Protein backbone atom coordinates (compact mmCIF):
# COMPACT_ATOMS: atom_id res chain seq x y z
CA UNK A 1 0.00 0.00 0.00
CA UNK A 2 1.33 3.44 -0.95
CA UNK A 3 1.73 6.32 1.42
CA UNK A 4 0.90 8.79 -1.38
CA UNK A 5 -2.68 9.95 -1.61
CA UNK A 6 -2.51 10.15 -5.40
CA UNK A 7 -2.11 6.36 -5.45
CA UNK A 8 -4.99 5.67 -3.07
CA UNK A 9 -8.24 4.19 -4.37
CA UNK A 10 -11.25 6.42 -3.93
CA UNK A 11 -13.49 4.79 -1.31
CA UNK A 12 -16.97 5.69 -0.15
CA UNK A 13 -17.44 6.59 3.48
CA UNK A 14 -19.81 4.47 5.55
CA UNK A 15 -20.23 3.67 9.22
CA UNK A 16 -18.09 0.58 8.76
CA UNK A 17 -15.29 2.39 6.89
CA UNK A 18 -11.89 2.26 8.61
CA UNK A 19 -8.61 3.86 7.52
CA UNK A 20 -6.28 0.94 8.31
CA UNK A 21 -3.73 3.10 10.12
CA UNK A 22 -0.26 1.72 10.74
CA UNK A 23 1.57 4.76 12.07
CA UNK A 24 0.91 6.95 15.06
CA UNK A 25 1.17 10.37 13.38
CA UNK A 26 -2.13 10.58 11.55
CA UNK A 27 -3.35 13.47 9.45
CA UNK A 28 -6.45 14.08 7.35
CA UNK A 29 -7.87 16.97 5.35
CA UNK A 30 -11.37 17.62 4.04
CA UNK A 31 -11.68 18.96 0.50
CA UNK A 32 -14.53 19.93 -1.82
CA UNK A 33 -15.39 17.70 -4.74
CA UNK A 34 -15.46 20.23 -7.58
CA UNK A 35 -18.68 19.99 -9.52
CA UNK A 36 -20.64 18.24 -6.80
CA UNK A 37 -21.72 20.52 -3.97
CA UNK A 38 -23.15 17.61 -2.01
CA UNK A 39 -19.92 15.64 -1.59
CA UNK A 40 -16.55 15.98 0.10
CA UNK A 41 -13.36 14.06 -0.44
CA UNK A 42 -11.17 13.48 2.60
CA UNK A 43 -7.51 12.64 2.23
CA UNK A 44 -5.45 11.08 4.99
CA UNK A 45 -2.07 9.55 5.70
CA UNK A 46 0.18 8.40 8.51
CA UNK A 47 3.29 8.16 6.35
CA UNK A 48 2.72 4.42 5.81
CA UNK A 49 -0.75 4.30 4.29
CA UNK A 50 -2.87 6.88 2.50
CA UNK A 51 -6.56 7.07 1.76
CA UNK A 52 -9.08 9.02 -0.29
CA UNK A 53 -12.65 8.70 0.86
CA UNK A 54 -15.75 10.41 -0.46
CA UNK A 55 -18.80 11.27 1.60
CA UNK A 56 -21.84 13.50 1.82
CA UNK A 57 -21.41 16.89 3.53
CA UNK A 58 -24.84 16.55 5.09
CA UNK A 59 -24.99 12.88 5.99
CA UNK A 60 -21.38 11.88 6.62
CA UNK A 61 -19.36 14.87 7.81
CA UNK A 62 -20.14 14.52 11.52
CA UNK A 63 -19.54 10.76 11.43
CA UNK A 64 -16.29 11.16 9.53
CA UNK A 65 -15.00 13.79 11.95
CA UNK A 66 -16.03 11.58 14.88
CA UNK A 67 -14.20 8.62 13.31
CA UNK A 68 -11.06 10.72 12.96
CA UNK A 69 -11.32 11.81 16.59
CA UNK A 70 -11.60 8.18 17.73
CA UNK A 71 -8.52 7.31 15.64
CA UNK A 72 -6.49 10.19 17.08
CA UNK A 73 -6.20 11.97 13.74
CA UNK A 74 -5.29 15.63 13.39
CA UNK A 75 -7.62 17.29 10.90
CA UNK A 76 -5.51 19.85 9.07
CA UNK A 77 -7.23 23.02 7.83
CA UNK A 78 -6.86 23.60 4.09
CA UNK A 79 -3.90 25.77 3.07
CA UNK A 80 -4.34 29.06 1.27
CA UNK A 81 -1.67 28.79 -1.34
CA UNK A 82 -3.74 28.04 -4.44
CA UNK A 83 -4.61 31.29 -6.17
CA UNK A 84 -6.96 29.83 -8.73
CA UNK A 85 -8.91 26.73 -9.63
CA UNK A 86 -7.15 24.77 -12.36
CA UNK A 87 -9.47 23.49 -15.14
CA UNK A 88 -8.62 19.82 -14.52
CA UNK A 89 -8.69 20.06 -10.74
CA UNK A 90 -10.89 17.43 -9.08
CA UNK A 91 -10.87 18.61 -5.49
CA UNK A 92 -10.21 21.87 -3.70
CA UNK A 93 -7.52 21.93 -2.45
CA UNK A 94 -6.04 19.58 -5.06
CA UNK A 95 -4.34 16.33 -4.10
CA UNK A 96 -0.82 17.60 -4.71
CA UNK A 97 -1.32 20.55 -2.39
CA UNK A 98 -2.79 18.27 0.26
CA UNK A 99 0.13 15.87 -0.10
CA UNK A 100 2.57 18.75 0.40
CA UNK A 101 0.78 19.69 3.63
CA UNK A 102 0.98 16.10 4.85
CA UNK A 103 4.65 15.84 3.90
CA UNK A 104 5.43 19.04 5.78
CA UNK A 105 3.68 17.72 8.90
CA UNK A 106 5.25 14.28 8.69
CA UNK A 107 8.65 15.78 8.01
CA UNK A 108 8.36 18.11 10.99
CA UNK A 109 7.15 15.31 13.24
CA UNK A 110 10.00 13.04 12.18
CA UNK A 111 12.64 15.75 12.68
Amino acid sequence: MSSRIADATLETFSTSWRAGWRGQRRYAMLTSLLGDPGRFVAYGTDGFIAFRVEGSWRADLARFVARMAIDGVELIPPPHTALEFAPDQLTFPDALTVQRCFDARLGRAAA
Partner: protein
Amino acid sequence: MSLWGSPLRFRSLQIKNRILRASRSQPAAVEAQWRSLDWELEYARAGVGAILSARAEVRAPASLAPDALTIHGDEAIARWQQHVGRVHAYRCRYLIRLGLGQVARRLDQDDLRDIVRAFAEAGRRARETGADGVEIDGAEGSLIAQLLAPGVANDRPPAFQGSLEHRARLGRQIARGVRHQVGSDFHVQFRLGVTSPLGMMAAGVPHLLGWLEHDGIDAVHVNANAVAGRYLKETAKVPVVRGGRFESEAAAHAALEDGSCDAVALVRPLEFPPREVVAPWRPAA
Protein backbone atom coordinates in the same frame (compact mmCIF):
# COMPACT_ATOMS: atom_id res chain seq x y z
CA MET B 1 -13.05 40.75 -22.47
CA SER B 2 -14.83 43.35 -20.39
CA LEU B 3 -13.69 43.91 -16.85
CA TRP B 4 -16.93 42.22 -15.68
CA GLY B 5 -15.71 38.74 -16.62
CA SER B 6 -11.99 39.14 -16.01
CA PRO B 7 -10.27 37.57 -12.98
CA LEU B 8 -9.36 39.72 -10.02
CA ARG B 9 -6.20 39.03 -8.13
CA PHE B 10 -5.92 40.17 -4.55
CA ARG B 11 -2.62 39.78 -2.70
CA SER B 12 -3.27 36.13 -1.75
CA LEU B 13 -6.52 35.27 -3.47
CA GLN B 14 -7.83 35.20 -7.01
CA ILE B 15 -11.50 35.24 -7.98
CA LYS B 16 -12.70 34.27 -11.43
CA ASN B 17 -14.59 37.49 -12.21
CA ARG B 18 -15.41 40.89 -10.73
CA ILE B 19 -18.81 40.00 -9.30
CA LEU B 20 -19.28 39.24 -5.64
CA ARG B 21 -22.56 38.39 -4.06
CA ALA B 22 -22.95 40.34 -0.85
CA SER B 23 -25.53 39.30 1.65
CA ARG B 24 -28.31 41.61 2.60
CA SER B 25 -27.43 43.98 5.43
CA GLN B 26 -29.34 42.97 8.48
CA PRO B 27 -30.93 45.53 10.77
CA ALA B 28 -28.94 45.64 13.99
CA ALA B 29 -31.60 43.76 15.92
CA VAL B 30 -32.01 40.97 13.39
CA GLU B 31 -29.46 38.23 13.34
CA ALA B 32 -28.59 36.47 10.11
CA GLN B 33 -29.58 32.83 10.07
CA TRP B 34 -27.87 29.61 9.11
CA ARG B 35 -30.71 28.59 6.82
CA SER B 36 -30.12 31.69 4.69
CA LEU B 37 -26.80 30.17 3.64
CA ASP B 38 -28.55 27.60 1.45
CA TRP B 39 -29.66 30.42 -0.83
CA GLU B 40 -26.04 31.35 -1.44
CA LEU B 41 -25.48 28.13 -3.35
CA GLU B 42 -27.77 29.49 -6.07
CA TYR B 43 -25.46 32.48 -6.52
CA ALA B 44 -22.42 30.20 -6.67
CA ARG B 45 -24.22 28.18 -9.33
CA ALA B 46 -25.03 31.39 -11.23
CA GLY B 47 -21.33 32.09 -11.61
CA VAL B 48 -20.39 34.86 -9.18
CA GLY B 49 -16.70 34.95 -8.33
CA ALA B 50 -17.12 35.04 -4.59
CA ILE B 51 -19.77 35.19 -1.92
CA LEU B 52 -19.63 37.41 1.14
CA SER B 53 -21.58 35.89 3.99
CA ALA B 54 -24.04 37.74 6.14
CA ARG B 55 -22.51 39.06 9.33
CA ALA B 56 -21.47 36.20 11.57
CA GLU B 57 -21.43 37.31 15.19
CA VAL B 58 -18.01 36.85 16.74
CA ARG B 59 -19.38 36.88 20.29
CA ALA B 60 -22.45 35.28 21.75
CA PRO B 61 -25.03 37.98 22.44
CA ALA B 62 -27.04 37.88 25.66
CA SER B 63 -29.91 36.21 23.86
CA LEU B 64 -29.30 34.27 20.71
CA ALA B 65 -31.92 32.97 18.29
CA PRO B 66 -31.54 29.21 17.80
CA ASP B 67 -30.66 29.58 14.12
CA ALA B 68 -28.50 32.72 14.44
CA LEU B 69 -25.42 32.80 12.28
CA THR B 70 -22.37 32.84 14.53
CA ILE B 71 -18.72 32.02 14.56
CA HIS B 72 -18.07 32.56 18.25
CA GLY B 73 -17.37 28.96 19.19
CA ASP B 74 -15.36 26.10 17.74
CA GLU B 75 -18.58 24.09 17.39
CA ALA B 76 -19.53 26.44 14.53
CA ILE B 77 -16.53 25.37 12.47
CA ALA B 78 -18.01 22.11 11.14
CA ARG B 79 -21.20 23.87 10.06
CA TRP B 80 -19.26 26.53 8.16
CA GLN B 81 -16.90 23.91 6.76
CA GLN B 82 -19.84 22.11 5.18
CA HIS B 83 -21.22 25.29 3.63
CA VAL B 84 -17.87 26.57 2.36
CA GLY B 85 -17.17 23.15 0.86
CA ARG B 86 -20.46 23.21 -1.04
CA VAL B 87 -19.77 26.70 -2.41
CA HIS B 88 -16.26 25.71 -3.52
CA ALA B 89 -17.76 22.88 -5.55
CA TYR B 90 -18.93 25.59 -7.98
CA ARG B 91 -15.39 27.05 -8.14
CA CYS B 92 -16.70 30.02 -6.24
CA ARG B 93 -14.78 31.66 -3.41
CA TYR B 94 -16.22 32.31 0.02
CA LEU B 95 -15.49 35.05 2.53
CA ILE B 96 -16.96 35.07 6.02
CA ARG B 97 -18.02 38.46 7.30
CA LEU B 98 -17.01 38.87 10.94
CA GLY B 99 -18.91 41.39 12.99
CA LEU B 100 -20.69 42.57 16.05
CA GLY B 101 -23.80 44.68 16.21
CA GLN B 102 -23.98 48.00 18.01
CA VAL B 103 -24.40 48.07 21.77
CA ALA B 104 -26.39 50.42 23.95
CA ARG B 105 -24.18 50.43 27.04
CA ARG B 106 -20.85 51.91 28.03
CA LEU B 107 -17.84 49.92 26.88
CA ASP B 108 -14.78 49.80 29.11
CA GLN B 109 -11.21 48.78 28.33
CA ASP B 110 -11.83 45.14 29.26
CA ASP B 111 -14.88 44.95 26.97
CA LEU B 112 -12.90 46.35 24.06
CA ARG B 113 -9.96 44.02 24.70
CA ASP B 114 -12.38 41.06 24.74
CA ILE B 115 -13.96 42.25 21.51
CA VAL B 116 -10.61 42.43 19.71
CA ARG B 117 -9.77 38.95 21.00
CA ALA B 118 -13.18 37.63 19.84
CA PHE B 119 -12.62 38.96 16.32
CA ALA B 120 -9.14 37.45 16.19
CA GLU B 121 -10.39 34.07 17.38
CA ALA B 122 -13.23 34.19 14.86
CA GLY B 123 -10.65 34.84 12.15
CA ARG B 124 -8.76 31.76 13.22
CA ARG B 125 -11.98 29.72 13.09
CA ALA B 126 -12.84 31.12 9.66
CA ARG B 127 -9.52 29.94 8.36
CA GLU B 128 -10.14 26.48 9.79
CA THR B 129 -13.46 26.25 7.94
CA GLY B 130 -11.64 26.35 4.61
CA ALA B 131 -13.06 29.77 3.74
CA ASP B 132 -10.96 31.90 1.40
CA GLY B 133 -10.88 34.94 3.60
CA VAL B 134 -12.73 37.15 6.01
CA GLU B 135 -14.38 40.53 5.85
CA ILE B 136 -14.36 42.65 9.01
CA ASP B 137 -17.67 44.49 9.21
CA GLY B 138 -17.15 48.18 9.93
CA ALA B 139 -20.19 49.43 8.00
CA GLU B 140 -23.42 50.92 9.25
CA GLY B 141 -25.00 48.96 12.09
CA SER B 142 -21.72 47.51 13.27
CA LEU B 143 -19.93 48.10 16.55
CA ILE B 144 -16.86 49.33 14.69
CA ALA B 145 -18.98 51.99 12.96
CA GLN B 146 -20.50 52.93 16.30
CA LEU B 147 -17.05 53.64 17.69
CA LEU B 148 -15.93 55.45 14.55
CA ALA B 149 -18.71 57.95 15.15
CA PRO B 150 -18.10 60.71 17.71
CA GLY B 151 -20.66 59.16 20.04
CA VAL B 152 -21.78 60.60 23.34
CA ALA B 153 -19.55 61.58 26.19
CA ASN B 154 -18.33 58.80 28.38
CA ASP B 155 -19.77 55.87 26.39
CA ARG B 156 -16.24 54.50 25.90
CA PRO B 157 -12.73 54.92 27.35
CA PRO B 158 -10.91 58.18 26.53
CA ALA B 159 -8.44 56.40 24.24
CA PHE B 160 -11.36 55.51 21.93
CA GLN B 161 -13.09 58.90 21.69
CA GLY B 162 -12.36 62.31 20.33
CA SER B 163 -9.92 62.41 17.43
CA LEU B 164 -10.23 60.17 14.38
CA GLU B 165 -7.09 58.39 15.50
CA HIS B 166 -8.80 57.50 18.77
CA ARG B 167 -12.11 56.57 17.20
CA ALA B 168 -10.40 54.33 14.65
CA ARG B 169 -8.49 52.51 17.35
CA LEU B 170 -10.95 49.62 17.75
CA GLY B 171 -11.17 48.91 14.02
CA ARG B 172 -7.41 49.03 13.67
CA GLN B 173 -6.82 46.78 16.67
CA ILE B 174 -9.32 44.30 15.22
CA ALA B 175 -7.64 44.36 11.81
CA ARG B 176 -4.24 43.74 13.39
CA GLY B 177 -5.62 41.06 15.74
CA VAL B 178 -7.29 39.17 12.91
CA ARG B 179 -4.20 39.44 10.69
CA HIS B 180 -2.01 38.14 13.50
CA GLN B 181 -4.28 35.10 14.02
CA VAL B 182 -4.86 34.14 10.38
CA GLY B 183 -1.31 34.63 9.14
CA SER B 184 0.02 36.57 6.20
CA ASP B 185 -1.35 34.33 3.42
CA PHE B 186 -5.06 34.62 4.26
CA HIS B 187 -7.30 37.24 2.66
CA VAL B 188 -8.57 39.91 5.05
CA GLN B 189 -10.76 42.76 3.84
CA PHE B 190 -12.55 45.55 5.66
CA ARG B 191 -16.06 46.81 5.01
CA LEU B 192 -16.70 50.49 5.53
CA GLY B 193 -19.84 52.56 5.23
CA VAL B 194 -19.49 55.48 2.84
CA THR B 195 -22.55 57.19 1.49
CA SER B 196 -21.31 60.38 -0.15
CA PRO B 197 -18.01 62.13 -0.81
CA LEU B 198 -18.81 64.69 1.87
CA GLY B 199 -19.73 62.01 4.39
CA MET B 200 -16.63 60.09 3.50
CA MET B 201 -14.34 63.05 4.06
CA ALA B 202 -16.14 64.03 7.25
CA ALA B 203 -15.80 60.51 8.59
CA GLY B 204 -12.12 60.44 7.74
CA VAL B 205 -12.45 57.32 5.63
CA PRO B 206 -9.42 58.03 3.39
CA HIS B 207 -7.19 58.38 6.48
CA LEU B 208 -8.70 55.28 8.03
CA LEU B 209 -8.15 53.30 4.86
CA GLY B 210 -4.48 54.23 4.85
CA TRP B 211 -4.11 53.07 8.43
CA LEU B 212 -5.93 49.82 7.73
CA GLU B 213 -3.67 49.14 4.76
CA HIS B 214 -0.73 49.60 7.10
CA ASP B 215 -2.41 47.16 9.50
CA GLY B 216 -2.47 44.46 6.83
CA ILE B 217 -5.83 44.45 5.03
CA ASP B 218 -5.91 43.11 1.47
CA ALA B 219 -9.00 44.93 0.15
CA VAL B 220 -11.68 47.38 1.17
CA HIS B 221 -15.43 46.98 0.57
CA VAL B 222 -17.34 50.24 0.57
CA ASN B 223 -20.97 51.05 -0.01
CA ALA B 224 -20.19 54.15 -2.01
CA ASN B 225 -21.62 56.15 -4.86
CA ALA B 226 -19.56 56.63 -8.02
CA VAL B 227 -17.82 59.84 -6.93
CA ALA B 228 -16.84 58.54 -3.51
CA GLY B 229 -15.86 55.20 -5.00
CA ARG B 230 -13.60 56.83 -7.59
CA TYR B 231 -11.92 58.98 -4.95
CA LEU B 232 -11.22 55.93 -2.79
CA LYS B 233 -10.04 53.92 -5.76
CA GLU B 234 -7.49 56.62 -6.54
CA THR B 235 -6.42 56.79 -2.91
CA ALA B 236 -6.33 53.10 -2.05
CA LYS B 237 -3.32 50.86 -2.46
CA VAL B 238 -5.52 47.75 -2.10
CA PRO B 239 -8.35 46.70 -4.44
CA VAL B 240 -11.69 48.39 -3.87
CA VAL B 241 -14.91 46.39 -3.87
CA ARG B 242 -17.90 48.65 -4.35
CA GLY B 243 -21.25 47.59 -3.00
CA GLY B 244 -24.48 49.35 -2.44
CA ARG B 245 -27.24 50.73 -4.49
CA PHE B 246 -26.84 49.45 -8.01
CA GLU B 247 -30.33 49.77 -9.43
CA SER B 248 -29.57 47.45 -12.31
CA GLU B 249 -26.94 45.14 -13.64
CA ALA B 250 -26.06 47.85 -16.18
CA ALA B 251 -25.23 50.21 -13.31
CA ALA B 252 -22.86 47.62 -11.89
CA HIS B 253 -21.21 47.23 -15.29
CA ALA B 254 -20.80 51.00 -15.42
CA ALA B 255 -19.22 51.07 -11.98
CA LEU B 256 -16.55 48.67 -13.13
CA GLU B 257 -15.90 50.48 -16.37
CA ASP B 258 -15.80 54.01 -14.90
CA GLY B 259 -12.84 53.13 -12.72
CA SER B 260 -14.57 53.59 -9.37
CA CYS B 261 -13.80 50.06 -8.18
CA ASP B 262 -12.06 46.78 -8.94
CA ALA B 263 -15.11 44.60 -8.24
CA VAL B 264 -18.77 45.00 -7.44
CA ALA B 265 -20.67 43.43 -4.60
CA LEU B 266 -24.25 42.96 -5.66
CA VAL B 267 -27.44 42.09 -3.89
CA ARG B 268 -30.31 43.73 -5.73
CA PRO B 269 -29.65 42.89 -9.38
CA LEU B 270 -29.11 39.27 -8.43
CA GLU B 271 -32.28 38.70 -6.52
CA PHE B 272 -33.26 35.15 -5.83
CA PRO B 273 -33.38 33.07 -7.94
CA PRO B 274 -30.29 34.68 -9.44
CA ARG B 275 -29.69 35.04 -13.11
CA GLU B 276 -26.55 33.60 -14.61
CA VAL B 277 -23.91 36.31 -14.53
CA VAL B 278 -20.85 35.32 -16.51
CA ALA B 279 -19.89 31.72 -16.92
CA PRO B 280 -22.18 29.70 -14.72
CA TRP B 281 -21.17 26.36 -13.38
CA ARG B 282 -22.38 23.46 -15.53
CA PRO B 283 -22.54 19.84 -14.52
CA ALA B 284 -20.18 17.55 -16.42
CA ALA B 285 -21.79 16.07 -19.52
